């Protein structure tokens, strides 16, 4: 099915999925940042519980995974087409490009995907399988996700992996928003420079926002006794 679409249709689908994923990342980051509230993780745990138990969110999860899968499959299919389009490479590599990261989207994308599996194993599946400590607030039992986060990010290797991963995500995002809009046909000499700025701001905000969590935890938080 995907193979039959024209290259532009594939790009359009991929960019729509990508823009959806950017929106998801903002939600994810906002929830994550709650872990930094100094209340022994109560706010964060409640929010996390909402995210895994609310039926609407559960329903949305299908789209989220769908978005990931479509984005990845389209990316790979297009990339194979692109590699095939130049069977013999240059001796002196092409010199110019608009942004340094735009050339390595497939590479950053693949690495992000690999660590994503690790990330899902660390958190998502732990929560789903119930293989996790519980905590009681006002008589209701919640998964203690906050503690899990704390435990993980007190380990240096783990924290370093996450920081590198998030930086890769930042590089990937630098060529995301404006590129998505371009693929959808939005380019106007009056607005496009602003779109580029917005795009970079999105990349920086998401990267810094996510990275703050492991950094703050590693340096400023103690494990609860």
């Amino acid at each position: 099915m995907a193979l039959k679409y024209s290259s532009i249709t594939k790009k359009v689908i991929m960019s729509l999925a990508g823009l959806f994923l950017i929106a998801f990342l903002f939600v994810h980051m906002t929830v994550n940042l709650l872990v930094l509230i100094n209340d022994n993780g109560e706010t964060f745990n409640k929010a996390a519980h909402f995210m895994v138990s609310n039926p609407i969110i559960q329903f949305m999860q299908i789209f989220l995974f769908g978005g990931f899968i479509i984005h990845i499959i389209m990316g790979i299919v297009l990339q194979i087409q692109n590699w095939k389009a130049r069977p013999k490479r240059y001796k002196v590599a092409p010199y110019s490009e608009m942004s340094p990261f735009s050339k390595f989207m497939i590479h950053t994308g693949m690495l992000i995907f690999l660590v994503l599996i690790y990330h899902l194993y660390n958190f998502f599946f732990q929560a789903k399988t119930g293989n996790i400590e519980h905590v009681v607030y006002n008589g209701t039992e919640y998964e203690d996700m906050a503690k899990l986060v704390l435990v993980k990010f007190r380990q240096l290797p783990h924290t370093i992996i996450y920081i590198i991963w998030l930086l890769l995500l930042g590089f990937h995002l630098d060529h995301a928003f404006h590129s998505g809009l371009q693929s959808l046909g939005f380019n106007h000499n009056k607005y496009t420079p602003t779109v580029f700025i917005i795009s970079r701001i999105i990349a920086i905000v998401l990267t810094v926002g996510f990275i703050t969590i492991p950094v703050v935890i590693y340096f400023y938080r103690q494990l609860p006794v």
Partner: protein
Amino acid sequence: MDLTLKIWRQPNASSKGKFVTYKIKDISPGSSFLEMMDELNESLVTKGDEPVAFDHDCREGICGTCSMFINGRPHGPDTGVTTCQLHMRKFKDGDTIVIEPWRARAFPVLKDLIVDRTAFDKIVQAGGYVSVNTGGVPDGNAIPIPKVDAELAMDAAACISCGACVAACKNASAMLFVGAFVSKFALLPQGRIEAHERVQKMVAEMDRQGFGNCTNTGACEAECPKLITLENIARLNREFLAAKLGARKGENVRGGGGI
């Protein structure tokens, strides 16, 4: 100036090629790049060797025939020019210059630095025209066209189909070329009439010819000798989307050449 040239030599389409190094002396900085190549060839012929085959014709930057990938850049280290307009003053005495043919599956090498760009013609043949026959057309001033549209159309129409965009693109994509062609018609009332059909046909043919697709890296725009912008690729995407979404049932032009 004295230079070292590393040039791709390949006797014909089916043979394997290799780089051959040549030394050349006393080149005038006022010479054009192709005049430097002429001098090299004259010396090769005098020695009884085969000259380096390269495409060239008008030598004033408009026919789009010349096509060398020079030190990692199509048309070499200058912006807004073709190889024939590149002057040796852009290089330094003692430089080593690596000269390669365009590299793309859709542009097979025919000999040395000459590639076959028929794929571009095929894309145009698929739909790059207004379907009017000779005669029986309305007066030239019958439909006024806003100056700004005519100018934008001209910006796109300036494309010389040299293939530098394909050569520069990491994906060997022809989107800038197709974007320019689709744009110059889409912007004018005469071309609007069959704009939806045209864009679908041209994109389908583009895929069929084995070009890569656009990842919005902008190398094409940076290297285009006629300074054609990415706006034209966005317009292509837009036109294509509008065509696909707007087509009535059964009226879609089937596209896609698979991966």
